[in-house]
């Protein structure tokens, strides 16, 4: 952590001004078997954060500035032990940041179960529901099993044995279903976790 502190990018410093380092520290040890906590996954390289990390932290600064009360609730969700809760909160922050940058003046709707934002435009109200698509539990478990498997033993000296997992993040295609492929299951599972009636059979 000391080296990271020395080489820290200014964007990370901005994040730590909103969420204290003492709150983030315990997250570094968390894992679902393969993935780290979504916040740690996002900021991973503290010396050179990814473009997504930069955009998310910039959006977080906008939330903190414009909607401090909402930021308090978001902070708890970001630091949650539930990885899906934390990832969803980060997705909402990114959506808010993008809508603010488009000068659409989104207003968060905080009641549980409601859509996430309301935008008033030309006497019209646009309701925005944010959904952060994530890897499903079965694929997560499969990846964790691969990561924790015992190393393969080389059959003879001078030979190395490696294995690599094949994980379609939207679910493994079912060979028994004629319409299933990697893309087929991806488009079937892409979001649509709205309250609307589902159209997928």
């Amino acid at each position, binding site marked *: 952590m000391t080296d990271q502190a020395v080489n820290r990018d200014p964007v990370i410093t901005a994040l730590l001004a909103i969420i204290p380092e003492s709150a983030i520290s315990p997250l570094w040890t968390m894992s679902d078997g393969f993935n780290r906590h979504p916040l740690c996954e996002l900021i991973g390289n503290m010396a050179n954060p990814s473009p997504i990390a930069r955009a998310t932290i910039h959006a977080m600064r906008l939330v903190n500035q414009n909607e401090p009360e909402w930021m308090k609730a978001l902070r708890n969700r970001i630091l949650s032990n539930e990885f899906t809760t934390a990832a969803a909160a980060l997705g909402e922050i*990114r959506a808010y940041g993008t809508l603010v940058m488009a000068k659409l003046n989104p207003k968060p709707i905080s009641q549980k179960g409601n859509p996430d934002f309301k935008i008033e*435009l030309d006497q019209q109200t646009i309701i925005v529901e944010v959904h952060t698509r994530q890897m499903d539990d079965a694929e997560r478990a499969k990846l964790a099993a691969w990561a924790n498997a015992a190393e393969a033993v080389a059959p003879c000296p001078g030979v190395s044995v490696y294995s690599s997992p094949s994980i379609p*993040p939207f679910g493994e295609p079912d060979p028994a279903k004629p319409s299933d492929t990697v893309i*087929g299951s991806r488009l079937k599972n892409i979001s649509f976790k709205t309250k609307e009636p589902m*159209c997928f059979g």
Partner: protein
Amino acid sequence: MLWLDLCSGPNSMLVDTSHALPFASRAGPIVSGALWAAVYGTCGLPIIEARAHGRHVIVPMGHNGKFRDSRTKLSGVIAACSDGVVLLEHPNPTVSLPQRFRNALLMLMDFKAERSVCAWGDDAEIVSRTVSIQEMSLHAIVQNLKRPPFLYQDSYASPTRIPDLEDQPPCC
């Protein structure tokens, strides 16, 4: 409006804005766009997926896309991917988006207008016409991929099909 965040975890690497097109080649053979099919696709629409050695899997979509469901009240879907943002509008929305909403998205540095399907201007049917042209092109491409020299499979598990002689173009 549904905001789809695909910037989390492995999705950030696997679904980019080219998936808002009906088909695209992403540094490799041509494949279907998952986002486009998920909203505009119909049951039976051919889905193209690339396999090794120049083969394709071409399977019928097993369900209707979101905008094909008459019960949906969505006016559009915004997908935020690692390489930018796209807007896919409903061809016949219950409530149309105000023009100012689309114009506001143009202010974003990473909004991919060229990959979005939007009702720019006053023509209310531009989205349905665009989708219909895209669908026709997709069907034409699939017909070509089922002819030599391409090899394809018609299910994920089936063996590769070598097109029959009658599939070949007539010899002059």
